[in-house]
């Protein structure tokens, strides 16, 4: 490559920084949705590159389901403190109480869908006009169709048939009162791109991404961490395995993978060799139907 040609990771990085700065330039009250997972940690790293030595023009916002991995929560608080940026936490638990929502029942009752209520309430509480999220188009086929600047109506709904055309690197962030925009700076990154970037930039991650011993429930080919949030039956087989997490979401709907990968290089080797997709291997919530993600997004999910 010539001296003036960027490596693909540099191209993706520059694109993401450009998108974040467009958010800063176009919106009054943006927010960065932060879960403590690797994708949102990567977003924070990119925001540091986009805005330092200035402060972030947005707070980090975590919609806490109450079913999070303690390691991820600890990491979240430490990261926010280290970089000295504002962290807003809003709890699904509180929304359930104040809005008298019905908790899903069942073995792996997940609050994933209820998160949307807390998110929309938080958007209203602070008047956020743009929420930056770490979704990627390679994750899921409905996401493959979503714009980088994705306009949501006052109910947070995504209308896939009425999306604005998005051309060149020109992002239209104009919205009417009540609407807001979800912005996805790492839309064009794949899972492997994220890991290669984490390795290159030496980005710290919560410990659960690396192989560790854990008591898990082996259920229909998936390994679910034992926690107070799932119901065990007499017939369930609980085993101790060496596992790592490929994605970090709710403890109830995120499965672990068996692994000996103790470092980033090992993880990249395993992901390069894997034959199963990230969400397919680890997400229980996508398996409900062929259009599970599309339906959640239409209802305001990020």
């Amino acid at each position, binding site marked *: 490559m010539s001296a*003036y040609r960027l490596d*693909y990771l540099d191209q993706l990085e520059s694109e993401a*920084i450009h998108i974040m700065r467009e958010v800063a330039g176009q919106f009054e009250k943006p927010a960065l949705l932060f879960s403590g997972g690797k994708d949102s940690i990567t977003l924070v790293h990119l925001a540091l590159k986009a*805005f330092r030595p200035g402060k972030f023009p947005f707070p980090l916002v975590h919609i806490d389901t109450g079913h999070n991995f303690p390691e991820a929560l600890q990491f979240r608080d430490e990261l926010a403190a280290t970089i000295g940026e504002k962290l807003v936490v809003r709890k699904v638990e509180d929304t359930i109480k104040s809005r008298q929502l019905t908790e899903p029942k069942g073995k792996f009752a997940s609050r994933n869908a209820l998160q949307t209520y807390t998110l929309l309430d938080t958007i209203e509480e602070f008047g956020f006009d743009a929420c930056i999220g770490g979704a990627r188009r390679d994750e899921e*086929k409905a996401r493959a*169709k979503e714009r980088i600047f994705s306009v949501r109506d006052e109910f947070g709904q995504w209308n896939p048939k009425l999306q604005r*055309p998005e051309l060149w690197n020109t992002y239209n962030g104009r919205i009417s009162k009540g609407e807001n925009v979800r912005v996805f700076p790492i839309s064009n990154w794949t899972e492997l791109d994220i890991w290669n970037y984490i390795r290159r930039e030496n980005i710290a991650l919560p410990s659960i991404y690396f192989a560790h011993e854990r008591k898990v429930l082996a259920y229909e080919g998936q390994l679910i961490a034992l926690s107070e949030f799932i119901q065990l039956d007499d017939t369930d087989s609980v085993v101790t395995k060496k596992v790592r997490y490929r994605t970090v979401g709710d403890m109830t709907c995120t499965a672990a993978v068996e692994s000996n990968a103790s470092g980033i290089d090992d993880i990249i080797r395993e992901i390069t060799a894997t034959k199963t*997709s990230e969400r397919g291997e680890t997400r229980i919530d996508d398996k409900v139907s062929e259009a599970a993600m599309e339906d959640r997004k239409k209802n305001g999910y990020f």
Partner: protein
Amino acid sequence: MDLLRFITAGSVDDGKSTLIGRLLFDSKSIMIDHLEALERQSKNKEDGEIDLALLTDGLRAEREQGITIDVAYKYFATPKRKFIIADAPGHIQYTRNMVTGASNSDLAVILIDARHGVVEQTRRHSIITSLLNIPHTVVAVNKMDLVNYSQDVYNNIVIDYAEVAKKLGLKDVRYIPISALNGDNIVEKTTSLSWYEGPSLLDILETVKLEDDIDLVKARFPVQYVIRPQTEDLHDYRGYAGKINSGIYKKGDPVTILPAGTSSTIKAIEHNGKEVEEAFAPQSVVIHLEDDIDVSRGDLIVKNEHQPRVTNEIEALLCWMDQKALVPGNKYLLQINSKQVRSVVKEVSYQLDVHSLEQIASPEKVALNDIVKVTIKTASPVAYDAYQELRTNGSAILIDETSYVTVGACMIQ
């Protein structure tokens, strides 16, 4: 490793989705669970074969109706390159979708059905490829299996297409015979097409030279955001954050800030928090100027040589993208990079027939998917280049002032 963004153009029957499915499948980029989902859905179809087209149909309505509604992006990588495919659907709103997908593409794969040769669709795809100034074109003559892999059929199509390419001024055109269904010449070369001596499609995608696609001479830096920490130790810090769209900037370069026309010199350039001697497109950087002058979002910092035009009247080819017709005399917001300015579409001089390239003078109505030549007057001067010379500073969108929807794409002339 480099990154290639490409678009595939072809109607459903040309086997476009099969081609994409084949590229992903043969380069081992389809995961087992996605394949299993595909098998489950394909069972509902009659022939029992796995329908690779289902891979790109992400929405429920698309799967139910067997159509593609919107541009989908697909990703795959080989040890040589990372690829982003923009898959634009074949029928409804085709022009709008292809223009959208083409706007970020380095290369277009134009599919031709070997049985039908160069048809009206092919011309339309090629005209859009040329209007959007996509640097590289690959003409893939598909379904060679259905014409007994005939070299004569292929050669005749190449001769026909060469004329189209010449008329449109397409620059870098390559030809390849393939069968997406059988995987001939997609990733591997096969004996069925032994008379073809060139590289496989993936070979072409992996090796097409991209180094010259970014203009490193005409330097353009649109300011997105001003970084001003205003803390005690960084009291005087004032950095202009943005992405270099073209060119190379060096510390000490004399620059002009447009549209104001004020002058200054680059005091420092920061890239990823470190000071650097020079930076180039498409890096995102922070630029510091020697002089304390007024610079804000929407301004363009350029080097003094090869400056863009600065006017408040723009001639452009406009692709109309809204259900509501364009009303000449209406006001719109024009956005070029980080700059937004009120504007009015003063005059529609002709409509471009995307099948024949003919110019139809003074069209009665400008509807969705039409491409027209317009004169746009802006409320204040705008700094721009001709799209055919500098894509990144010659492209603009029109935004409806009341609904805020993106209604048009402008290729400035």
